[in-house]
């Protein structure tokens, strides 16, 4: 995964339709979320609780994974462990092959995106059909999701209408949302009925009961996990919570943060495959626990906080960078602020080192994150890890952003700013000759493309303070 944020940002910024789509959508989501958390005291207490629940589960993660596994197995769920996405893909494929499955219907799952599962299955002759409406649309378009909660947020009605006409038999062109939704329902009903297996993610895994908790609005998640004879769930190892009771505050945070809904239409708690006498539900349930770098991130006390994420997307909805460049600019499965800290950690700073710099550190994400992830601090930490060779085993590709020139510049900066005498001489010089620096000089060139050149004042504040008689000690 190579990352060239700037190039893609350039394209996105020059696409007025895309920018309008994102701006409108993000504005709406921010307003709806704000309406959910008007009671500030309650919000503070709730998010503190949410953050503690996740931090607590992480502190006990290895124990909870074992407890969960034991309970899940006792409930009749098969639990698999995958160190890499390749392992996870192999496991899923093996299960499907063992059942002679040819078609898989999928509920929305970011981990399956992380695995690039669909491509892997297609390569082995198994058809994977996305059933979340947004995912279905981008699958038709051959694109990747641009938002973790609303995957096709970058598309407008017209584009979707055209996709449907091109791909669905006898589908007339219409921009009527109800008609488009009905068309998808019809096509996907057939796919559900004929699928050999269903695949889903999981929002929470409850150690106490061995249950999977999935939330959604459409019902496709319920269908994927109920109608086909086989259900495979894929989830990151960080999805664990200790108690069933922990789900309540997290549910009070997740949908409200994500879309401003009090709750999603469905909260689906699955604790076992079909039991004797039950008439529906899959006969087998498998859960694949994916590591893919998470246990490495876990090794660092600060970076570990990244794993608290409940994937609500609020950070991207509130991000002034994301709302201008859209999700595809990030060039990775997880866009926005969470992507900027997660991708470089999972893939390595050597692969995605420019992402931590694609931020003004404005803290808008930190302000809304329901589990209090210190996103800005982690961004700065990752910048530091990239710039200086580090000894932390938690960071893949540490030091890969090291630049001799840049380091020399900062050393020079230190020489001037850490020494009052040098600073006095330096600032004096700048106030005399600084304005002679041409606007086209390196660095200043980018600045002056849309701004006037800053003017050095004739006298520094140091000088003015002395002249006005301010004491200096």
């Amino acid at each position, binding site marked *: 995964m190579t990352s060239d944020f700037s190039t893609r940002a350039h394209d996105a910024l020059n696409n007025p339709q895309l920018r309008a789509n994102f701006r409108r959508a993000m504005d709406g*989501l921010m307003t709806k979320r704000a309406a959910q958390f008007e009671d500030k005291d309650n919000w503070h207490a709730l998010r503190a609780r949410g953050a503690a629940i996740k931090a607590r589960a992480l502190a006990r993660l290895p124990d909870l994974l*074992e407890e969960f596994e034991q309970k899940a197995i006792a409930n009749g769920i098969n639990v698999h462990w995958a160190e890499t996405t390749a392992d996870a893909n192999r496991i899923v494929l093996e299960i499907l092959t063992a059942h002679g499955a040819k078609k898989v219907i999928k509920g929305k799952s970011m981990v399956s995106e992380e695995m690039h599962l669909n491509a892997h299955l297609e390569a082995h002759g198994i058809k994977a059909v996305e059933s979340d409406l947004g995912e279905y649309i981008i699958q038709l378009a051959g694109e990747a999701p641009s938002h973790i909660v609303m995957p096709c947020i970058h598309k407008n009605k017209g584009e979707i209408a055209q996709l449907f006409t091109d791909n669905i038999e006898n589908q007339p062109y219409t921009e009527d949302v109800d008609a488009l939704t009905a068309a998808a329902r019809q096509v996907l009903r057939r796919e559900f009925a004929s699928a050999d297996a269903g695949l889903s993610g999981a929002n929470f895994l409850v150690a106490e009961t061995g249950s999977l908790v999935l939330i959604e609005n459409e019902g496709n998640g319920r269908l994927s996990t109920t109608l086909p004879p086989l259900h495979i769930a894929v989830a990151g190892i960080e999805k664990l919570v200790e108690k069933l009771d922990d789900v309540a505050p997290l549910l009070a945070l997740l949908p409200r943060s994500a879309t401003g809904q009090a709750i999603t239409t469905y909260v689906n708690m699955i604790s*076992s495959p079909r039991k004797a006498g039950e008439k529906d539900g899959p006969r087998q349930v498998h859960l694949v626990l994916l590591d893919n770098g998470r246990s490495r991130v876990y090794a660092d006390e600060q970076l570990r906080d990244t794993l608290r994420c409940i994937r609500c997307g609020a950070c991207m909805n509130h991000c002034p960078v994301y709302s201008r460049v859209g999700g595809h600019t990030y060039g990775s499965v997880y866009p926005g602020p969470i992507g900027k800290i997660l991708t470089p950690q999972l893939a390595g700073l050597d692969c995605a080192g420019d992402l931590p710099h694609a931020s003004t550190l404005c803290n808008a994400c930190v302000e809304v994150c329901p589990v209090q992830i210190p996103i800005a601090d982690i961004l700065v930490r990752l910048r530091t890890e990239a710039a200086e060779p580090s000894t932390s085993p938690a960071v893949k590709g540490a030091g890969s952003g090291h630049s001799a020139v840049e380091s020399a510049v900062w050393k020079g900066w230190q020489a001037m700013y850490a020494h009052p005498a040098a600073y006095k001489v330096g600032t004096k010089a700048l106030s005399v000759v600084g304005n002679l620096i041409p606007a086209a000089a390196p660095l200043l060139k980018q600045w002056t493309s849309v701004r006037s050149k800053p003017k050095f004042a004739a006298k520094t504040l140091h000088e003015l303070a002395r002249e006005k008689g301010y004491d200096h000690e």
Partner: protein
Amino acid sequence: MSEARANILARLRAAPRLQPPERPQWQAPGFNDRLDRFRVMIEAVHGEVHLVSADTWRAHLRKVLAEKNVARVLAAPHLGLDWDDMVAYDAPVEDFKDQLVSGIDAAVTTTRGAIAETGSLVVVPDMDEPRLASLLPPIHVALLNAGDIADNLAQIMEKQGWAAAMPTNLLLISGPSKTADIEQTLAYGVHGPKELIVLVLQ
């Protein structure tokens, strides 16, 4: 056990052990009039609420179904519903799939209670009322005893002792199936029911 499992757990165990933080106090809201809150919330997401008495609900339901031009109804026999074209979900889904996917207009199920805060029904499918009943037909009618409405999720979990005995599947249902994936425009019934009708039995 697998090598992956051992490796992952070993890496996690090798990491610094941090003291698990305590859960700070947080109280989910309570309501003086739980039925009212439930109703406001579920109606806000397109659910339909009918207040009926425990002995007249069947007649009322007949009227509602007739008004909606429902032909075939799926309901467990023990509900004692009187309807001409009525089927029970009494065979495994493998033998019942076609009918279920496209041959039924409305399904009636019971509920285990509801949550006032979010306007959610607690549905626990069982042998008589399997999981897909509340999902595949375009109309879902849910029967709710007014006395079973709790303030919030934490409360009902605790009161009903969920953690001690989780069923195969436990659902919270808050309104009919919906999507806003196309330009954030709401559309109902994308995969599940287009209509959710709650009969609150008083």
